[in-house]
């Protein structure tokens, strides 16, 4: 029996756990072709002409919002930014009413960033347009995980299986952590985390990861170190003594890299805090993939917007 041809079936992108392996590689390959456009002198493709994309950022963000904005515009879509300050959310409008109001303007896609876990699903459950989760609370940040994956895809090809990625830092409050663990482990990557216990989520023993509390123990055998940003409010919450002690224990420096596998690379979702989560020498070294990640971000978001906007109701492509 002939197999049905592959088609992208998702109305929304809420987290990476909804994606099959086939979806992931289709998305990465789509991103690869858009990446070429980004390197051209004329960086524009007419594929989403006439589509409207609302960038609904209820939580502060510069890089993610800019990245989505550029991605949409490079595909010739019209993008409209909305932030919490200056919107009626500050006047007490509920998320439900704000989102119904936005949908009444007939966007094709709403990209949402919100400080509450589950906010993107909240919209997806109530609206007919496509929803892209650009980060919801501590829960998920699927385009970050996909752009990290695309960065690795450019570096490794599709040879993910058996590689080891170490994630260092505040995992408890990190949506980047949650989405990356799911996506990387689904591709056969061994995931390790290294953090003080106060920065690990509950129930971690049931996750497909190895847990370390000391960088020197965690690094041998590692191919990629992914540093996470430490937010200052974690000290105020009593989860850590102070910045000095944290950086002494967890700030990645060149000595650490000597413990890892040859050719080890360093990633960080940004914004980076030099001297706190990654040393300045590493940030500026050839081992750093941090700016490659930013570059990948535009291509991956182009792919996400393209796949969502051009899918048809029955799952086939228009």
């Amino acid at each position: 029996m002939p197999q049905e041809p592959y088609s992208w079936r998702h109305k929304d992108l809420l987290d990476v756990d909804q994606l099959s392996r086939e979806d992931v590689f289709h998305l990465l390959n789509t991103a690869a072709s858009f990446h070429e456009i980004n390197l051209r002198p004329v960086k524009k493709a007419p594929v989403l002409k006439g589509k409207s994309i609302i960038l609904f950022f209820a939580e502060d963000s510069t890089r993610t919002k800019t990245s989505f904005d550029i991605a949409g515009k490079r595909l010739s879509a019209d993008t409209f930014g909305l932030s919490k300050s200056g919107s009626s959310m500050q006047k007490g409008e509920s998320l439900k009413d704000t989102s119904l109001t936005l949908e009444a303007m007939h966007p094709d896609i709403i990209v949402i960033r919100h400080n509450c876990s589950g906010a993107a699903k909240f919209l997806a459950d109530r609206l007919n347009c496509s929803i892209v989760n650009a980060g919801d609370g501590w829960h998920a940040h699927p385009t970050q995980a996909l752009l990290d994956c695309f960065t690795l895809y450019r570096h490794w090809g599709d040879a993910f299986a058996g590689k080891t990625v170490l994630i260092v830092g505040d995992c408890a409050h990190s949506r980047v952590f949650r989405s990356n663990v799911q996506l990387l482990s689904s591709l056969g990557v061994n995931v390790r985390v290294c953090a003080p216990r106060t920065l690990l989520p509950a129930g971690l023993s049931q996750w497909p990861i190895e847990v370390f509390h000391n960088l020197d123990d965690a690094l041998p055998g590692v191919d990629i170190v992914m540093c996470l940003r430490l937010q200052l409010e974690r000290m105020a919450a009593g989860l850590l003594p102070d910045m000095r002690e944290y950086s002494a224990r967890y700030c990645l420096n060149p000595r650490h890299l000597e413990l890892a596998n040859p050719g080890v690379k360093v990633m960080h979702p940004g914004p980076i805090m030099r001297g706190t989560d990654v040393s300045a020498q590493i940030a500026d070294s050839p081992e750093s993939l941090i700016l490659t990640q930013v570059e990948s971000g535009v291509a991956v978001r182009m792919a996400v917007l393209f796949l969502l906007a051009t899918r048809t109701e029955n799952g086939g492509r228009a």
Partner: protein
Amino acid sequence: MSRFAVINARYLGSSVDVLVEDGRVAAMTPHGGTFPADTKLLDAGGQILFPSFIDAHTHLREPGFEWKEDIASGLSAAVHGGFGAVMCMANTSPVNDEAGITRLILERGRAAFPHGPRVYPIGAATVGLKGTTLAPLAELADCGCVAFSNDGVPIESTEMLRRVMEYAADLDRIVIDHCEDPWLAKGSCMNEGRISGRLGLRGQPDVAETIQAMRDMALAEYLDVPVHIAHVSCARTADAIRAAKKRGVRVTAETCPHYLFLDESVLDGYNMFAKINPPLRTPADREALREAVQDGTLDILVTDHSPHARHEKEVPVAEAPNGFTGMDLALALTYGLVRDGTLKEEDLIRLWCIRPSEIFKLPVNRFVPGDPADFFLFNPSLTWEVTKENLYSKSWNTPWLGQTLSGRVTAHWLGGHQIF
């Protein structure tokens, strides 16, 4: 003399007739006896007879939050759910920390349902529920408060709680404590564990409840005064209560139907309608609580009826208020425990009726001549869908919304008056 008899009802497995004279039970006899000629006979058609239940933990929201519930709608939900008496918590606006509010609650209750269900206010333990100054407990008791509690805003200071317990004991009133370590529980949306970790929601460890309950029981033991632990949600707390009771500590405790039926997995998919405090715990906790209800470690069942408007609940989980409505559903749900063999009908009467009346010193019907004629008929095979329209509460924030339940109250008498 007004006289009627409800005949052909099933009470604890036997077919009985109940004769009522002047609002009181005159006799309960095996079905088929004879009555004086002027007795009006009402055939129950073999439906189950229960004495009216007591709900010792509800939020009726009046004064101050009448869009969620008011005393009239709350009592309507109560009587249709099998409750002839409800105790209501003090976290209204203004708080029930003074005689005027207590009187207002009592008057509104009498005005809405002159024959009952009766409302028994619970006074605030501290002024404004702020946990810093004793409320005028004697005045509140004189006006009709049957217990004291800071429910909704647990008392942080152990010293303050000690003084509340001592002062209330002088008045022969019990203190009901919502047990929650305020620091461990701060900002939490659900039980801390595998699911909260995955969803990225701030979790509340079960020990937040246990630690506070153990504090209360240690104080009760030291002071030799009683204390009542509200809505126990986890195995650890039930174990601590069992051990304390064995030592002779004067502790009583309650749990709610939702902790016997649901667990934290209901929150999966960010179901804000399943957000409650204390949170739904694990399947193991649910089983342990069923055992604790069977063996009497947990003395009573309560609903913790907490109405909220739909628009207040329909927000992201972290922003949603806590609580479920419960009085409309409690009997249909807990009768399920009789069906599955966890409890017997007499256990339901013990948990919903006899023990609450003993703990809070409220009138009760044991079908002994002279008891108030407070009872209802229950048809266990009547199935109904939990919809907004089928609930008597103003709010319908229950995780059972949309489900079909079996069993409903078909008639309810209070003081010999048929309320419906």
